[in-house]
């Protein structure tokens, strides 16, 4: 019987089946950050089991609050740092080398097609963009992953979402995923994997696919997955060229992960984006989505460009294109957080950072920061932010604050307008 991408990965990683529906998988990588990992480390120490299953398969970063903002966050960083050094975890990204985990780890080549990956972070589903099974887990699952290199999952059913049609100019991957979540709901893919495919996904670069998969969890999905193709291979080539004689050989290998034509899906959804316009959320749930045009004029106090959803180079480029030579509206402030040092460096080289500064934006170091209201741009009670992030939950960016989730283009256009607004990139094509 045909298999989905997730089923193929499960089949090659099962080490135990404690009951009919539960599979314990061998993990290819365990990713760690300083919020959810320290409690796991402390618990392992308390149990007298301060060990790691394989230091080369553990990748760790300080990203949520960095540089530390107070003694408590400094302690979280210190626990991570000491632990990484104690266990010889070579891929530990401390202050100065650190970035938002879901942008940094792919950039370092740590994600490969067919991998199984867990992290104590719900947006771990981002890495499915490479054809991996990557899932967010809690601290206890992370702890067992660190100690034993395994994690238990129910065999997930897969929802296939084919993105069809032609994406209009000025409409981006973020608009696509917001429209998908608006369609299926925040509970629409709970306990399921979403396999994204179709012509629009095939045309997307890896950054765009990461944006797509990043928000799969906002529909409840265990992971978003895009089957690997030549785009995947080209992105990974610097990291895998020792393993294959040519990109074509790598592709041949990775194509084994492609879903079988007779794979069984829980549901198949065709999502035509030909008529899609830029989208924004309006409430406190990520499925409360409307066209920006309907929300045009909604007052905002802050614009935030960054995060694991939209803090990558392509995102900064689009925003800079809109902001070039202009000043943001004096009624609002704008915060730009390039997601990794490499992205920051490239943005500097390309003059994007200068564009942001001249437009009147504040550029911060790479960090998750304001996205979850921990640092670097927390809102005051009653304030509103147009953010390129992934969650608009009540209080997410600061108690009493409200978030409109938007694309980088809409964020930049809104910064200029001083309220929610469509970008000129979209208007030009109208």
């Amino acid at each position: 019987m045909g298999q989905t991408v997730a089923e193929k990965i499960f089949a090659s990683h099962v080490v135990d089946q404690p009951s009919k529906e539960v599979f314990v998988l061998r993990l290819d990588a365990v990713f760690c950050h300083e919020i959810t990992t320290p409690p796991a480390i402390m618990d392992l120490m308390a149990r007298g089991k301060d060990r790691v299953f394989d230091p080369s398969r553990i990748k760790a970063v300080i990203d949520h609050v960095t540089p530390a903002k107070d003694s408590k966050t400094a302690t979280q960083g210190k626990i991570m740092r000491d632990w990484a050094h104690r266990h010889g975890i070579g891929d530990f990204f401390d202050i100065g080398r650190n970035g938002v985990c879901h942008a940094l780890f792919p950039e370092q080549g740590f994600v490969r097609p067919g991998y199984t990956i867990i992290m104590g972070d719900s947006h771990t589903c981002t890495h499915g963009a490479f054809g991996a099974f990557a899932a967010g887990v809690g601290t206890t699952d992370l702890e067992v992953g660190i100690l034993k290199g395994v994690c238990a999952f129910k065999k997930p059913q897969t929802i296939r979402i084919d993105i069809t049609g032609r994406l209009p100019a000025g409409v981006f991957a973020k608009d696509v995923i917001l429209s998908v979540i608006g369609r299926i709901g925040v509970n629409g893919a709970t306990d399921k994997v979403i396999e994204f495919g179709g012509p629009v996904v095939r045309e997307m670069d890896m950054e765009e696919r990461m944006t797509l998969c990043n928000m799969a969890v906002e529909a409840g999905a265990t992971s978003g997955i895009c089957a690997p193709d030549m785009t995947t291979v080209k992105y990974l080539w610097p990291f895998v060229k020792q393993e294959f004689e040519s990109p074509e050989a790598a592709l041949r290998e990775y194509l084994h992960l492609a879903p079988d034509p007779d794979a069984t899906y829980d549901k198949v959804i065709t999502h035509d984006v030909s008529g899609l316009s830029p989208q924004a959320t309006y409430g406190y749930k990520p499925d409360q989505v409307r066209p920006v045009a309907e929300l045009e004029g909604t007052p905002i106090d802050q614009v935030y460009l960054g995060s694991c959803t939209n803090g990558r180079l392509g995102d900064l480029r689009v925003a800079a294109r809109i902001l070039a030579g202009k000043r943001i509206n004096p009624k609002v402030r704008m915060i730009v957080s390039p997601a990794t040092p490499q992205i920051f460096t490239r943005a500097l080289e390309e003059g994007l950072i200068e564009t942001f500064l001249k437009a009147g934006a504040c550029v911060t170091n790479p960090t998750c920061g304001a996205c979850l209201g921990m640092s670097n741009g927390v809102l005051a009670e009653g304030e509103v932010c147009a953010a390129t992030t992934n969650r608009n939950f009540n209080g997410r960016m600061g108690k009493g604050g409200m978030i409109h989730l938007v694309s980088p283009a809409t964020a930049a256009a809104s910064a200029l307008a001083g309220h929610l607004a469509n970008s000129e990139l979209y208007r030009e094509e109208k």
Partner: protein
Amino acid sequence: MKTFSGNILFLDRSDINTDEIIPAKYLTEISRQALKPYLLEDLKLEGFNPATDLAGKQVIVTRANFGCGSSREHAPWALEANGIDLVIASGFARIFRQNMFNCGMLAVELAPEQIEAIFSAFCPGPAQAVADPQTGRLVVSDGEKSLEFSFELGEFERALVQAGGWVEYADKRY
């Protein structure tokens, strides 16, 4: 195997997320007990006041997709720190549900009609619930009337509750 029981806190809303259960600004706490005062601080639910409504409650009854959003295990820890170790809902977000079982807590899933029956018969309380993971029996009562339900628990989930959590289970087995 232990039974789970106590006074019910009714949260009549779907999609209650983990940011509402425990806001991210408290994730700098490393001890679980330190989370206790902040449980459900940002819950958007009319009439709910965490300062008065949480006291003496050991069970939550709620609607669909409870615990969606962040993977933070701080959410079940904050419940546990307040003495709540049983949540009855018409559905859970995957990570939250797994976190509960991984901590040896009990997540009971009922059909939406059954949850509705509990709400209409007992909300706002006072009412009590007793759930036995061994038999899969749940009884909700208020001293005058009672409703009985059976709930499904996977073999693996029952084993986790029995072992006291996933670390204990995995440590023996792998």
